């Protein structure tokens, strides 16, 4: 059985790639993921805010109240050097590269074209095989138009592509007016892959304290419908590879993603709840299903249910919605 796939030029032994998550914070866990069969690993994200603010925050608290009072001109010993989070991140990438043989994909999370983008180059120098760019932006300002936001995404990708030679994937939110157009623009800007879609952590309300609170909810597999649709639509229209992320929990999800046209299926929630062993379990089930259904390889099924490959291309468009509503009524 040939489970291999190619993602941004990286030859992968199968399509299962753990996405950016705390799992990659430990070298031992990544080794275990490799042992369980993961084809590559996307490292947890380094955030633009960390790059831009950590240094200032550290300086603020280390020097706060310094040189104010004769008996205490400062309050902390100062080491010669701090290994700030971005530096430690690079160390971690280098360590991962030393410790595992599967490709290691660095992840940068940011939105502007500021100085932080140079960390793309640093991540490359640390040995990462590729970079995933997670552009995470909540367009809360009513003065900022959709075009401006789209341009911002494209500019960031162009900027990063200028600085690195390793392939760059772009992880996107689903909230674009014209996803196809956006995908094409990013493709033209040089993105080597599109990762669909980012799950935003939606805040919740604490009614007791009347406060907005962060609330992490893990994915369920119905959530893969949205990326499934868009991968099916985009498959074959772009130079860039496609990765499906959000809601991949079992082998059938991987199969669907692949059939829609995804080069890889990214997983997180399932691994957080079910543990690292879920990779090997899913791979086993995948192989079994493929055997039972007479598929020789992943390549064979890739894109087989994409929009251009299915009998009813309109099923992925608005008609699909109407049809679903009709069937819904019939059920009742």
């Amino acid at each position, binding site marked *: 059985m040939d489970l291999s796939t190619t993602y941004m030029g990286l030859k992968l032994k199968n399509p299962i790639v753990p996405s950016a998550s705390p799992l990659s914070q430990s070298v031992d866990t990544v080794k275990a993921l490799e042992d369980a069969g993961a084809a590559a690993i996307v490292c947890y994200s380094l955030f633009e805010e960390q790059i*831009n*603010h950590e240094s*200032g925050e550290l300086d603020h608290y280390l*020097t706060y*109240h310094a*040189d*104010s009072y004769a008996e205490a001109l400062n309050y*902390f010993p100062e080491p010669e050097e701090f290994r700030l989070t971005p530096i430690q991140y690079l160390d971690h990438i280098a360590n991962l590269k030393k410790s595992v043989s599967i490709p290691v994909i660095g992840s940068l999370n940011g939105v502007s074209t500021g100085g932080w983008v140079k960390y793309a180059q640093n991540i490359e120098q640390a040995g990462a095989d590729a970079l995933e760019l997670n552009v995470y932006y909540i367009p809360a300002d009513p003065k900022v138009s959709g075009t401006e936001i789209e341009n911002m995404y494209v500019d960031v990708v162009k900027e990063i592509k200028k600085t690195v030679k390793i392939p760059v994937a772009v992880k996107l939110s689903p909230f674009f007016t014209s996803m196809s157009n956006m995908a094409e623009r990013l493709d033209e800007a040089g993105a080597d892959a599109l990762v669909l879609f980012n799950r935003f952590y939606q805040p919740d309300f604490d009614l007791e304290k009347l406060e907005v609170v962060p609330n992490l909810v893990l994915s369920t597999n119905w959530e893969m419908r949205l990326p499934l649709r868009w991968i099916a639509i985009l498959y074959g229209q772009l130079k860039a590879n496609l990765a499906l992320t959000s809601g991949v929990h079992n082998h059938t999800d991987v199969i669907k993603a692949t059939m829609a046209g995804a080069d890889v299926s990214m997983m997180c929630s399932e691994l957080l709840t079910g543990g690292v062993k879920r990779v090997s379990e899913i791979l086993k089930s995948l192989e079994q299903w493929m055997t039972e259904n007479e598929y020789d390889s992943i390549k064979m099924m890739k894109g087989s249910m994409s929009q251009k490959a299915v009998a009813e291309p309109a099923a992925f468009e608005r008609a699909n919605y109407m049809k679903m509503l009709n069937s819904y009524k019939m059920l009742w």
Partner: protein
Amino acid sequence: MDRRKITIDGNEAAAHVAYRVSEVIAIYPITPSSTMGELSDAWAAKQLKNIWGTVPTVSELQSEGGASGAVHGALQTGALTTTFTASQGLFLMIPNMYKIAGELTPAVFHVSARSIAAAALSIFGDHSDVMSTRQTGFGLICSNSVQEVMDTAAIVHRATLESRIPFVHFFDGFRTSAEVMKMEELSDDDIRAMVDDEKVKEFKKRALNPENPFIRGTAQNPDVYFQGRETVNKFYNACPEIVQNAMDKFASITGRQYHLFDYYGAADATRIIVMMGSGAEAAQETVDYLTKTTGEKVGVLKVRLYRPFSVKHLLAAIPKTVEKIAVLDRTKEPGSLGEPLYLDMVTAISESMADGTAPFTKMPKIVGGRYGLSSKEFTPAMVKAVLDNLKNDSPKNHFTVGINDDVTFTSLDYDPAFMVEGDEVVRCLFYGLGADGTVGANKNSIKIIGEETPNYAQGYFVYDSKKSGSTTISHLRFGPNPIHSTYLVQTAKFVGCHTFGLLEKFDVLDNIVNGGTFLLNSPFSKDETWDKLPNRVQQQIIDKKLNFYVIDGYAVAGKTGMGGRVNTIMQTCFFAISGILPKDEAIEQIKKSIKKTYGSKGEEIVKKNFLAVDQTLENLHQIDYSSLKVGAIQIPPIVSAKAPEYVKNVLSQMMEGKGDFVKVSEMPIDGTFPSATTQWEKRNIALEVPAWDSEVCIQCGKCAMVCPHASIRIKAYDKSLVSGAPATFKHMDAKGKEFPENSAYTIQVAVEDCTGCELCVEVCPAKNKKETRLKALNMVPQIPIREQERANWDFFLSLPEMDRRLINTSVIKAQQLQQPLFEFSGACSGCGETPYVKLVSQLFGDRLIVANATGCSSIYGGNLPTTPWSKNNEGRGPAWSNSLFEDNAEFGFGMRLSVDKQNQFAKELVVKLQDQIGQDLVDAILNANQKDEAGIYEQRERVATMKQKLEGVKSIDAEKLLEVADYLVKKSVWIMGGDGWAYDIGYGGLDHVIAQGKNVNILVLDTEVYSNTGGQMSKSTSFGAVAKFAAGGKATAKKDLAMMAMSYGNVYVAKVAMGANDVQTLRAFLEAEAYDGPSLIIAYSHCIAHGINMGKGMENQKAAVDSGHWPLFRYNPDNFAKGENPLKLDSKPPKIKLEDYIYKETRYNMLTKSHPKEAKELLALGQAEVLKKWKFYEQMAGMKVGANDEEVKS
């Protein structure tokens, strides 16, 4: 050899050498010497090696007594060992100093000499501490400048090995220890060349060693002890020559020649000063001026080696023409014939005259005087006054100089206008806030000037006595010649005022020269600024024809991401205006220094500073005021006209920075000051203050409880009283059964006393239902409401306090109606300690006696000019005192013994005088129940009645009873201090006191670090916390003081954290006081030394409890009698991970950035410790303890 020129302070100069010639360094923090230990620890952490290629072992002890014991032990077993200390710390070393000297053990103690606590503590410099060690057998050698500190350190470390005499090497605290000066650094090769390895070998041979055993430290009897003491004489006789040889050897290496006594002045001088320390530099400068300008035959003899005192070398150094000698001592010995150096000089000269060895034709006239106590300025004008005094036929003896002694008239008059500094010296003054980084920038500037130009440079920095809103004044000098001006800048060519508001607080242009340059950081535009200036400042600018520059540094800082720190911006302005360096070179050097200062913390902070530099010059403007007029803005009075006379006449001078003019007659004779004086010092330091929204308020009282400065108060009062209120005064109906019917309720903020910390806003649980970002308290700008709120505050104060008997103290909303009798302290904004202190003052203030350990709480509680312990409308309030750091438990214990004794005596007298007092009253007094406010009130009434009855009784017993009658009313004795005291230096005493069973209440304000001296590790510091002396994270667990105290079984113990459970805190304080025995409350106190947002301090407290790091509990031995387990856990099992608490704080999270691997390991250890401790407490609290349990009983 071309040596490196560096710009460092005296502490670093001493540590530079001491570290390199030591194998063991035993330390303990004390101002102003702490820096030496901190540097040694930091160097060891960086693996810096000594001259023998090994990293010295640096170890912090629990006290200076402990440090000296460790030094003694290390020396006895053959390790070259040093320590650093000052003041009371040196005192604690004296017993070991006798031992070390008695055993002829080479060692050097480096001491930044400091005042000792007498009528008052002072952290500043004089020789009182050092002079108290004269008798120990240690040699005493003095350095007068930063260069000399490094040089003498090298000399004395050589001399001690050869002479076997241990030495105290001392230099003036602050003036030399903290002065930043350009100097030539001794290389490791230089230091290596100064150490004689043969002598090191001999030292090691004498060490205790089981391979070659002997005993040292025997007990001797009358037959031989005396003879034994005399054996050392020959070593002391030989010592001066050995020291001189070391000085000569040093000269051969560096070219700088020192002598045991160095004379400077006219070769044929008739009048000379003899002195030690930094003042000798000012004397040299003055002598130089007088000999060159007026040809006066004067000189100064600098004493370097003071012990052993060499008359031979002294006589060789003094010109034979000398007729009159003024000996200056920087110490005071009340009751003595004179101060030590004076007495030594008199003895030396008179003995040598008697035996014919003196070079003088007749006995010189010798007078002695005191100067410079507690860093009192010693200026050329004072030097001249001393020399002029010698012109008299009968010069004043036993004089003082630098003060106005209008009581015993010891002081010499001097002309403050007399100055000797030439125009070639550029002198600058900078006024700033601690928070704006002014001092740091000036330290960098002086380094740039010192190290990048041929100029000599000096920087000295004066700080505030308050910890919040503190101001700083930087004194900078530079010029082509060595600088000997060891006093503050008297006239400045450049004055920078980095905070506009300081124009009202200080007369910043008083000292600027005509035509000088004035740089102002103004929040107003260049066109608006002039009109916003106080008219005094405008007039000074015009009269002195100043070059006036303005920049809105805050705007530039805001635009460049620098927040409120204007340091880099103002530094750039200074270089641009002063033209010390060409513009481009100056900017390059500033950027270089930014890189050096901030580089370790990441590139972004460096970039922000660079950006600030680049944007500065375009925002700097020179103001043309030629057509502008003087306006009408007046400087407000320092204190209100309503203030008491003492505040208006004396304390206000100190508030204004003119305390040097306070006369001797104006000072209390025994250190006694009036209570309640902070209320008169309206500091107006908060930019924003809380405003009360009565529509939203639920009257919970939490805001007042957490307020560290008692600047948010609550009153419930009869509604009818509202009628006279100012229009903007807010009130609402009081809600709840805790308040009398028909009461109005007001929460009032003292906006002029508030520090703007926001703790009250953070804890306020009431949210505006229409807009949830708003609460019942919301921060608003202070200036627009200052006037109205001043009137509202005055009206609020005029409202009656609630009758204490009617207040339910077990409920916070009611308890907070109790008047705080600890208010407006100088503690840090958002302080985590003061809410507890204030709570004690509210609950028990009218009968409270406080013993306060030295530390933060003694500083914010007792540092002049104004003090926060106050009194109520009946004139009652806390009686407060601070003895020392190490003895506080015993100090408070003594208070309890005293109170109990006098109570007992009073009761005995009451019985004796029952006929005069009346049986009913006697019975009522003797059997009074004083467990609550009503009981105490009634007892006070009885005692008042009794006093009236005794007024007419003429008997000794009646008189005696009147003396002690007040002790019939319950007194609450509280012993307070920080963890440095309770866990470390004072632990032995604390342990003894709680074991005695007496009714004392001990409050440990636990910040888990030595906060007052700048964040050194204590035994309360936890696993993984970074502190000074624990740069790699503390590797051992926090000491469980509570468990140790509980082991006695009869001690009430509580662990509290107000931010986690304020009700439990209140309960613990009430129970502790009610318990008739020793009580110990350990209170989690968030602190500036934790590296946190102080406004969120209560959140951190909660996280500490939620993580299990700080379990809440009360252990009440009274519960035994009820058949209950005395231990009650008041918090739930850990519900968040330890890391979710500790990584909120820089003290922990910085380790993940400096030592990531160790951080992980220590986190795991810390987490395991928390869980283990919790289980242990849980088991203990779950144990069955029954009154009927025979096993327990037995």
